[in-house]
């Protein structure tokens, strides 16, 4: 019997939810451990980045990488993984689209540093010192990763072979993804290892949707109403990103009476789910020509946060080429 294929599970700018989803494979994890040798998994096991550096080029079969890229450490580790793994799978919404942390892209780097290290009520920093990539201290140079000017999705930094979206990704998709790699039953590179349909197509509430879906009056938010657990959210006037979101999540939010927030990202062929949703919403809203569209639109609290909650770095306005904070703005 040949040597077991080596895999790495690694996080960049992530909360650990994706790693937790791997743990949620439960008994399936034993099957995985039987079939492969886990060589790096900083969240679960004691591995250091030096382990990764010691591997040869393409020595690891697959790298499951979760999280976005926000600082120079993330960037360095992403490049190390790319060099040492034959296949890179972007695991989770942050790796695929930037995720919720990318809402910080709407605020400049300077403002973030200023708020966190100078102006926050619990901070005392009279000299206004900010973290520096290098600091001299008692004859030694202390090094910190450099905070970038933008949150990047993984494929904006390294080439990513496959994507498994979700916040967190369902264990079933992870298992299928690993199985597909091990049996070499893979779709073309760049594919998302999830169904191609929109969430509405698999949603159990779809059958309650009226033939002509219309939203009358102000938009309501889920915490403001007692939503019917059976009826389509949009038909009730509650925003649901289902029409612009890929399915495959198992409709866990919908089943707990929470509308879709769009963590699975856009359906194939759509680059900017937020703008697509704006267009479809404009068609759905029936305020009548005598009504006041502005008042209805104003009833949507924080539309930008709603529309681009998970996908800002890959959206039309949020997309940006990788550049260091120290480089000049073009």
């Amino acid at each position, binding site marked *: 019997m040949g040597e077991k294929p080596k895999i790495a599970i690694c996080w960049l700018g992530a909360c650990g939810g994706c790693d937790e989803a791997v743990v949620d494979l439960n008994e399936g994890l034993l099957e995985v451990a039987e079939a492969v040798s886990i060589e790096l998994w900083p969240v679960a096991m004691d591995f250091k980045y030096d382990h990764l550096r010691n591997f040869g080029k393409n020595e690891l079969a697959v790298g499951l990488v979760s999280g976005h890229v926000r600082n120079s450490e993330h960037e360095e580790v992403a490049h190390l993984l790319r060099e040492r793994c034959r296949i890179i799978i972007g695991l989770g919404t942050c790796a695929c689209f930037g995720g919720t942390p990318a809402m910080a*892209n*709407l605020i*400049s780097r300077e403002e973030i540093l200023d708020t966190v290290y100078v102006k926050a009520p619990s901070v005392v920093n009279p000299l206004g010192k900010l973290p520096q990539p290098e600091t001299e201290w008692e004859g030694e140079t202390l090094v910190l990763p450099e905070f970038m000017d933008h949150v990047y999705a993984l494929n904006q930094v390294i080439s990513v072979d496959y994507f498994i979206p979700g916040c967190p990704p369902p264990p079933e998709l992870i298992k299928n993804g690993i199985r597909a790699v091990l049996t070499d039953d893979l779709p073309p590179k760049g594919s998302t290892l999830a169904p191609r349909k929109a969430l509405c197509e698999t949603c159990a509430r779809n059958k309650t949707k009226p033939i002509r879906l219309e939203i009358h009056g102000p938009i309501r938010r889920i915490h403001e109403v007692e939503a019917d657990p059976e009826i389509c959210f949009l038909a009730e006037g509650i925003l649901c990103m289902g029409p612009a979101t890929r399915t495959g999540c198992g409709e866990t939010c919908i089943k707990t009476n929470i509308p879709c927030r769009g963590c699975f990202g856009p359906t194939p062929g759509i*680059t*900017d789910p*937020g*703008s*697509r949703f*704006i*267009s479809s*919403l*404009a*068609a759905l*809203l029936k*305020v009548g*020509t005598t009504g006041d*569209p*502005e008042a209805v*639109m104003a009833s*949507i609290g924080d*539309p*930008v946060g709603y*529309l*681009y909650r998970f996908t800002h770095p890959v*959206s*039309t*306005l*949020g*997309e*940006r080429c990788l550049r260091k904070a120290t480089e000049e*703005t073009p």
Partner: protein
Amino acid sequence: MGYEPKLVCFSCKFGWGYLRDLDGPKEASVFLIPVECSGKLDAIHLLKVFKEGADGVLILACEEGHCHFQEGNFRALKMLYLLEEVLWAHGIQKERVRIAFSLDPEGRGIPDRIVQMKNSLAALGPLDRALL
């Protein structure tokens, strides 16, 4: 040299005629795009226009009740209300997008409207692209 704002003008061909046939504006800084209906404009078109370097967008739509496709003009307006928030979050002022509802099949009023829009864009100054 003075600042010359780049303006993209989408016009409904039913209400405003075919812009390309106009003797009107020929400046390189004005991009005229006739569309089938203002309701056919997708939010992504406006986002792309700003991403590609425009300073402002003018949408010429039909007068209320005169849309060839019933309510395309109103749909464009609704789309715009939402889009303004997205643009504003990226540092693009709401004044940079304007929609006009009128009937002008020969497009005679278009050059004037373009001049007006360009003047107000010039007053706003170049677009701050720090967040784009």
